[in-house]
């Protein structure tokens, strides 16, 4: 009986711990051992995210008992927070697969936070405060999302959904609709204006 079987030597999930976005790409090399009775070739590799690449030797015929390296590279740009990115290797005639993953926590760089939250509202920062909702017909709705960064509160992020319905009363034409989101900064209540541009047809 022919057996095609690759296994990851050691842990299939590599913990990268806490990494800094500013430090750039992190990688980990896994080793796959042929635990079957036949030589196998790696057919295909793919990952869960564009931020992660997978590198492997596509031409190798791995003999039983032999091993081959597979490297996952994680680019943390824009990926602040916890991450778990998997890589998948498809191998053998039967297109079996074996998976491995990188996990950890990425601390956003100050530069990244400034790009993500470009609008300053006192001690708070806001992801965006103006949206073009485009052309809407009466009765339709759209929702956009605004995130507030609480810089003095460990960079806590607070998400708001801002909805707009094109009411008949508003009438046709171009409108600049002002919506307000309300949050607190410490003891203080803060109102942040969000402008929605909409052309009602």
């Amino acid at each position, binding site marked *: 009986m022919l057996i095609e079987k690759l296994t990851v030597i050691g842990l299939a999930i590599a913990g990268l711990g806490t990494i800094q976005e500013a430090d750039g790409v992190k990688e980990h090399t896994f080793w796959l051992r042929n635990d079957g009775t036949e030589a196998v070739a790696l057919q295909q590799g793919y990952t869960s995210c*564009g931020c992660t690449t997978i590198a492997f030797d596509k031409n190798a015929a791995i003999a039983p008992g032999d091993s081959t390296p597979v490297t996952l590279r994680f680019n943390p740009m*824009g990926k602040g927070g916890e991450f778990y990115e998997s890589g*998948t290797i498809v191998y053998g005639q039967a297109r079996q697969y074996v998976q491995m993953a990188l996990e950890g926590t990425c601390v956003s760089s100050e530069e*990244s936070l400034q790009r993500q939250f470009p609008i300053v509202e006192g001690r708070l920062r806001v992801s965006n405060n103006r949206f073009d*909702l485009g052309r809407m017909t009466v009765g339709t709705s759209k929702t956009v999302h605004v995130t507030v960064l609480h810089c003095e509160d460990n960079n806590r992020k607070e998400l708001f959904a801002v909805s707009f319905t094109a009411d008949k009363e508003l009438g046709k034409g171009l409108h600049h609709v002002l919506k307000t989101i309300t949050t607190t900064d410490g003891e203080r209540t803060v109102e942040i204006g969000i402008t929605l541009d909409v052309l009602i047809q």
Partner: protein
Amino acid sequence: MNSKKFPIMLALSVLSLGMEAQELSAHFDMTVDSNGKITEAISKKQYSVTSQLPAFSVTSLKGEATRFDGYSNYVKASLASSTATVSPVAMLVAEDYTNSADETDAVAWFKTNYVDKGKGVLLTPSTISQLDATKQSACWVMCDRVGISVGYSNLPGNLASASTISALKAYGEAGGNLLLTNHATQLAVAVGRLSETYAPALFGSGSGGQNDDVWGSQPIIGNVDGQIYDHSGHAIYDGMNFTSGLYARSIYCFEGAGIKGDHNCMWDLNTYGLSASPNVVKNFEDITNSTVLGTWNHVVDYCCAGIVDFEPTTTYAGRILAVGLAAYEWNIEVTNPYLDQLELFTTNCINYLNPSLQALNSDALTLNVILAPETYPMMQTDAAEDTPTYATICGNLDETNKEGFALQLSSQGDLQFKFASAYANGYIYAINGTEKLPRGRWNMVTVVLDKANNVATLYLNGTSIGTKRMSRSSVVLSSGTFYIGKDGTDVKSDAFLLNTFCGLIDDISIYNSALTAAQVTSLLPSELATDTPSFNYPATRYASSLWRPQFHGMPSGGWTNESHGLVYENDKYHVFFQKNANGPYMSRLHWGHISSSNLYDWTEEPIALYPGESYDLKGCWSGCVFSDATITGGKTNILYTAVDNSKATIAQAAPNDNDLTSWTKASNNPIISGAPSGLSADFRDCYFFTANGNKYIIVGASKNNIGACTLHKYNNGSWTNAGTFFQGTNANQHGTFWEMPNITDMGNGKWLFTCTPLGLGSGVRVLYWVGTIGSDGTFTADNSQPKYLEMGGIGKEGYGLLSPSICKQDGKTILMGIVPDKLSASVNYQMGWAHNYSLPREISLSSDGTLLQKPYSGLDNMRMSTAYAKQLTLNGTESLSPVSGRQIELLGTFTVGSGNVGFNFLKEGNEQASLTYNSQENTLTLDLTSLKRQANDAGVYSGVYSATLPETLAVGETLKLHVYLDGSIADIFVNDKWAWSVRLFPTNQDAIDAEVFATAATAATVQAWTLSKDQQTTGVSGVNASVTADSVSFYDLQGRQLGGKPARGIYINNGKKRYAH
């Protein structure tokens, strides 16, 4: 055949008379084969229908079907896809596009499928002045190059020249839609639609290499619960194979093994400084007003946007569909096993941006309609049409200009398909079906126009029922309004449209090919025969109505005239009635049917009898139900008045099931062929009875211009006239014609005869006589002068209860009848319904032969816990709070004294309905003069209904007033002897209070309840007995076992409802 569906938006307006046309949109799906050829267009019933009343759809065998009410609603669609004028699509490539194998292949495909077919124009920057948003609603810009650098200014072959960018910008701003593929996605920035900040930067232009993987588009974006965006059903993927097993998720494949360029020109959303809250995709979409429709094959989280649909913004009117995936590749140097998918995807994208390309084929066309007619179109109200005329089910036929086509249905159920042909400079062909369209069930009607084989075929449920030669000519298509439910003309009676479809229409499909008979058969939904269409209007249709009764019998909509055939069978009461489903007006009657287990919660059943035989072409009018061991084998049968255009006869029908929902007319109909000589030819409304072992039918008639009844006796399988059953003696007092005769054995040898005469001096009202049946079957009244069924003085001129239907069940004799609303046709049009029936009354005879009427005892089960109960000496007015509303029961027992007593209800401030007993005059008066209402009695009662009680109540005697109010009807009972039903149409929704009053000190016991037909929760009908002291095991109505002696109320004991005092 690989097929796909994609949507085109149709502007639809739905009209209802007296209303402003409302623009709505419809969602038609079309199916296209792998060559991009349209093979099917399906209306998915996304059109909305408005009418005077809230429209509704029913869930049906193919999703949703639209209810056409037969008199007010229909759909107007501008079926742009049927026009011959096609807005072509443009394709723009670099001057040197032949330097790219991918661009060369794409151009070749475009030339074959668009340019050569007159549907497209190929442009380069040197000819871009031809790009015109008014001529081409979409433009595909394709650029896939080796060796160019990122940035739109680096696009080759003058694609980035100022004049090209300027022309594309003007095109987009004028509403032209762009499909940008591969490196051309960067033009979204160039034309000003997308900020430079968000330019596509995930970029490749290498020379590529061999890769054996399958690449395509992953349409499901994201992997966090609640934030997974599944676009696999988007129109750009319609008809494509969603292939599993290649990656973690299924993908739509674009290319297989070969030399891949890996030329991405897309968006890595982690690089734009987008917040990860909630995720970068959503933020990109919010900020750029776009939708990410595809990413790399393998990606499951939020990072790369490969296909982006940029919607028009406030400043940029066009839509941009950008396809930047490297997988979108036209040339891989070897045969691409997924090329058909790539081409289909491209066709989808073009059609998504340019729906006008979906023109119909005038040489090969299939129309398929799934529909369930409730009844046939009315067309005219005066007579049954000997030569039927046709209403349009759907179509855009213009007979004057000889263009278009229409599927039509006649007033007698004949199917016809008419289409304009190019033959002889314009000719209208008609295919006439040899079978009628069955009513009350789902059907599939299909028409195939096949010029190549020179035949047009009409199918009913997959079977050919008519063909026509096409003279080898094409169909002349029309760009005119595509109507559904009606054509462009109005045929009316009063406000009611008559040339309309009545029933349900589900999918309408148009195929751009001539389907074979086998293909037509394959379209038959498997549920066609088993799914029973429900034509009932939901209660929500009348949600804003103050008038619609909740616990009175009536159909769900349309017209009802009198009820008849009240019977208890198979654990339910059944009432049949004169029904016009085509609208709330009187014409061409069917036998409608409602049922109830308790006589107050009614459900409309399917139509029991449809006219259609030669003897009942004009209608199936009133009659009765009966059962007899000899005549019907013990089964309940229908006897009805069958009317053709010249006379009435009596016909019979037998049920096909125990629930009495479907019926078969007797083969020997009519069983009584007309009125006997000596009586009026006008002869109608039959009633069966047995006496002295003989079986008889009586029929209403006129003799010497005075109301009379004929008698027919059953002898050896046939009915012979046995003379006159009974007749009046005075036209003014007894009427000139008797409708709805009824004879009921009341016990002790006494029989009750009721009829509803026409031509009475006081107008239509129900008369009754008590008497005996002789050995010859004739009736002899104890007193030649009749009495009135409705309390004296109140029922006249057609007000009050008419045409009683009587049945015996559980030792009770139960009577109910129609209580006409007496409203104008225009009000009925607005309401969507006309008339309802009375509450059931329990009747008996007093020792002196007076009819005693009281409410049916089972009505007590509607009482809710919201109640008022007091024993008091009343002097003045007492609120009955918490009881209020328009579904209430008021019960007062008063000791008659010197003053007036009664109830006020529908009260707000000084406006109210006031029911007063005046002890001085012994009169009962309902005064509606202060009530805000829709008057229905001007010149007759003008809001004051007053009767002298048939007996005088002396001081100290008891007066019992019992009122049931239900929307627009009140049923009033006095002393469990006299009754009367009245219609009142309050218009103030806040007038809901109720009170009791006495103008002088009066001992009274007063109770009141809020009522609900849903109150009965156990399914056990009726209260059988009282809880006795030894009843140790009983339950409340929610099924909870109770301990100890229960408080006053209704409980379950031994599976029966019981009452505890």
